[in-house]
């Protein structure tokens, strides 16, 4: 009964959202603002209805109502409540509902919060957001119904895939979806601007925070995914260029380019065509990403066509790309910049180069991911493109970006003289070289790693010196102590400080990634109480143990790890057995230091514990990569606070790209 109510709510939401596509257009055309307002109210109605349906599904999970097929497929009574709830997005149907719920909420927010500041384009923005919602609701109501009824009356469910019963994996899909949905908002605003023919910078300025929020969600979502892969999959790495990983990386790459490129539009009225292109591509890639992960196309290209959902996604992407680019070309003349980039050695040029590098990376990942799928569809040959392909191209491009980060921060707008460059870059370049030199002196000889560390030193120096200089100057000018100057500079330059912190996080991430050059792996068989030395550690196997942990049974080896004669940690590499699943999962044991991770994975228990085989890995600098996370968070929070200062009338008009200039 309740479940039927939920389904009917989705049907009603679909109808209202469809109305909300047409009404704003008609309303503007016939100057009937009641029509437009009804569509705005409709977004709230849609949100409430989808909320009802979501609540129904959530209730079904919490009480383990297995008459709902989706609950049966993804939950079981013995699961902790936390995972019963996260099972909501553990499969296609529920995750589409989650997506629609958040999108409906964002749409309602946009329809009301921006109705005065963007009066001209809000109707079209609402209409565009409703187009996306109609697509999702249509799928939910037809082929991806999360409230469909189970055949029979089962009393127990299949249970959530144990791989997903990990905190990082519970948070990973919602964060990614928040990112994808977040980018829908600037996309809708961009479309509205194109439809209306109002090509000033209003849409960019309005959606800046959305873009930042979406970027942050995608970033953290992927970091959690990497952390999960590292701890749960047990192969010893956190990124494998798997198509599923690439699916989320592509929109992140173009989204990061977009996030930076809009600053150039805000400040200098440039890159308008780039920005519209980037947001269209970012949005399309996020839909493509969901398609790649959820449609079954990865199991077999031919399998995906057996469900209707796969083709529906592809058709939707095709429609979006066609209409969006058609709109852009129609308004191309209005978009093209009045100023061109002044000189080569300018901040503007580095932004352009930034876009090129990110697009290059996205294109590479796209080809590497999609080409095998196309080849299989067209010629039936199955092929895979291996990690070396991606590493060989993305690696150098990434290092170029890291260097560009430093260059862009220091270089001047419009024009930099040779003298200016020499004066400002001299110290950071020296520091970068010194970093590389010092590390080489310490015995690190790997050329790739030395380049990364050297560039990281250069860029880190640029970031700190640049900001530090501002603080010092401010302290001197106002005759206040440095600490006060620091606080005051941060408060008056939130965006710049936030950006600097995020960029420092990026530097840390690169340092962490460079650690991969030095990964070592050994397979070791241990017998009880017989120490084995490896990579500076002495490992002693004490015996096998069985532990019970909520809904899983853990069976693992107790390993004492010694370094320099002292017991450093007792580790428990194990396998976990879930009652509903036939195969066990790896639970790795990690001893983490600033220099490296000692990573133990249980390969096999031999003769009932008479000996045990472990994979022992030393992964240097992993914690440096994870350290980027708090920096990204702090930087994003600071940058969110930034409010564009109120400009004087003529400056405001110029900034918004209106008449004159």
């Amino acid at each position, binding site marked *: 009964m309740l479940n039927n109510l939920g389904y009917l709510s989705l049907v009603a939401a679909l109808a209202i959202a469809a109305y909300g596509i047409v009404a704003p257009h008609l309303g503007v055309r016939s100057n009937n603002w009641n029509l437009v307002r009804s569509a705005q109210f409709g977004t709230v109605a849609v949100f409430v209805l989808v909320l009802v349906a979501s609540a129904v599904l959530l209730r079904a999970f919490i009480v383990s109502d297995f008459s709902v097929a989706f609950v049966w497929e993804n939950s079981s009574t013995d699961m902790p409540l936390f995972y019963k709830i996260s099972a909501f997005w553990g499969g296609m149907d529920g995750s589409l509902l989650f997506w629609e719920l958040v999108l409906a909420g964002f749409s309602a927010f946009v329809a009301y919060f921006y109705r005065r500041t963007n009066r001209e384009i809000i109707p079209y923005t609402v209409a565009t957001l409703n187009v996306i919602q109609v697509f999702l609701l249509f799928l939910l109501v037809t082929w991806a119904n999360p409230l469909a009824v189970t055949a029979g009356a089962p009393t127990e469910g299949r249970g959530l895939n144990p791989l997903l019963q990990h905190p990082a994996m519970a948070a990973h899909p919602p964060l990614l979806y928040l990112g994808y949905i977040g980018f829908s908002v600037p996309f809708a605003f961009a479309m509205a601007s194109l439809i209306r023919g109002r090509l000033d910078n209003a849409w960019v300025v309005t959606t800046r925070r959305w873009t930042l929020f979406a970027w942050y969600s995608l970033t953290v979502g992927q970091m959690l995914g990497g952390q999960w892969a590292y701890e749960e999959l047990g192969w010893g790495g956190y990124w494998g260029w798997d198509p599923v990983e690439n699916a989320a990386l592509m929109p992140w790459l173009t989204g990061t380019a977009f996030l930076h490129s809009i600053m150039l539009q805000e400040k200098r009225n440039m890159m308008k065509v780039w920005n519209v292109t980037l947001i269209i591509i970012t949005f399309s890639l996020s839909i493509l990403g969901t398609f790649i992960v959820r449609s079954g196309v990865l199991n077999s290209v031919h399998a995906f066509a057996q469900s209707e959902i796969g083709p529906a996604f592809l058709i939707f992407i095709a429609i979006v790309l066609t209409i969006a680019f058609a709109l852009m070309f129609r308004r191309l003349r209005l978009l093209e910049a009045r100023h061109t980039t002044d000189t080569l050695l300018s901040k503007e040029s580095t932004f352009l180069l930034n876009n090129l590098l990110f697009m*290059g990376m996205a294109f590479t990942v796209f080809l590497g991911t999609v080409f095998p799928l196309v080849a299989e569809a067209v010629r039936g040959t199955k092929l895979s493109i291996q990690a070396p392909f991606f590493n060989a191209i993305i690696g150098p491009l990434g290092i170029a970006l890291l260097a560009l980060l430093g260059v862009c921060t220091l270089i001047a707008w419009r024009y930099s003289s040779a003298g200016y460059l020499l004066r400002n870059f001299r110290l950071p370049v020296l520091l970068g070289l010194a970093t590389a030199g010092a590390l080489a002196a310490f015995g690190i000889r790997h050329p790739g790693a030395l380049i990364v560390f050297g560039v990281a030193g250069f860029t880190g120096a640029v970031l700190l010196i640049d900001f530090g200089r501002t603080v010092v100057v401010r302290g001197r000018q106002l005759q206040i102590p440095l600490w006060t100057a620091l606080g005051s500079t941060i408060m008056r330059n939130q965006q710049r400080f936030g950006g600097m912190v995020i960029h420092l996080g990026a530097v840390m991430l690169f340092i962490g990634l460079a650690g991969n050059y030095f990964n070592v792996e050994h397979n070791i*068989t241990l017998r009880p109480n017989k120490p084995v030395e490896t990579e500076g550690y002495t490992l002693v196997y004490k015996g096998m143990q069985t532990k019970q942990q909520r809904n899983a049974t853990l069976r693992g080896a107790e390993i004492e790890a010694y370094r320099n004669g002292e017991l450093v940690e007792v580790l428990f590499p194990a396998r976990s057995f879930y009652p509903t699943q036939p*195969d066990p999962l790896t639970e790795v044991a990690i001893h983490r230091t600033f220099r490296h991770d000692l990573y133990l994975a249980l390969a096999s228990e031999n003769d009932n514990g008479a000996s045990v085989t472990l994979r022992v890995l030393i992964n240097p600098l992993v914690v440096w990569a994870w350290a980027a996370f708090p920096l990204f968070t702090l930087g994003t929070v600071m940058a969110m606070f930034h409010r564009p200062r109120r400009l004087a009338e003529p400056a405001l008009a110029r900034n918004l790209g209106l008449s004159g200039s």
Partner: protein
Amino acid sequence: MEGKYRIMIGGTIILTIIGAILYQGAQSTVFFFTPNEVVAAPDQYVNRNVRIGGLVVPNSTRWDPDRFRLDFAITEDFRTFIPVVHYGVKPDMYREGQGVVVEGMLDEHGKFQASTLLVKHSEDYSAQNHAGDDKKQLYKSVVR
């Protein structure tokens, strides 16, 4: 004047990236074949890095934990077989009768030297009994 420099540099970057993609793509693409395809024309596959997907033949496994050496045979239809050897730990989920993907090279003696061993299992996580299934369907479901 400056505009020309920008186009030149931008174009060079783009062309370099495309060139790198094509070159690396050719280097890193690994083709996937079935056991029957390999057995039909073994000379084509000698010393060529490929992937083969097949089912592990029951009673064909020899595992030496001290030398980390795993020997087994894979098949597609239980009529032709390819012997495989892999050095490294035996994957958790390795089971006879289940699907695996091996990557490596066929040597001159007809033995497949696997550098990588991937154990695939059905996306369907329920513990079903596959005994009654058509073998070809089983192969298709776990490997392709």
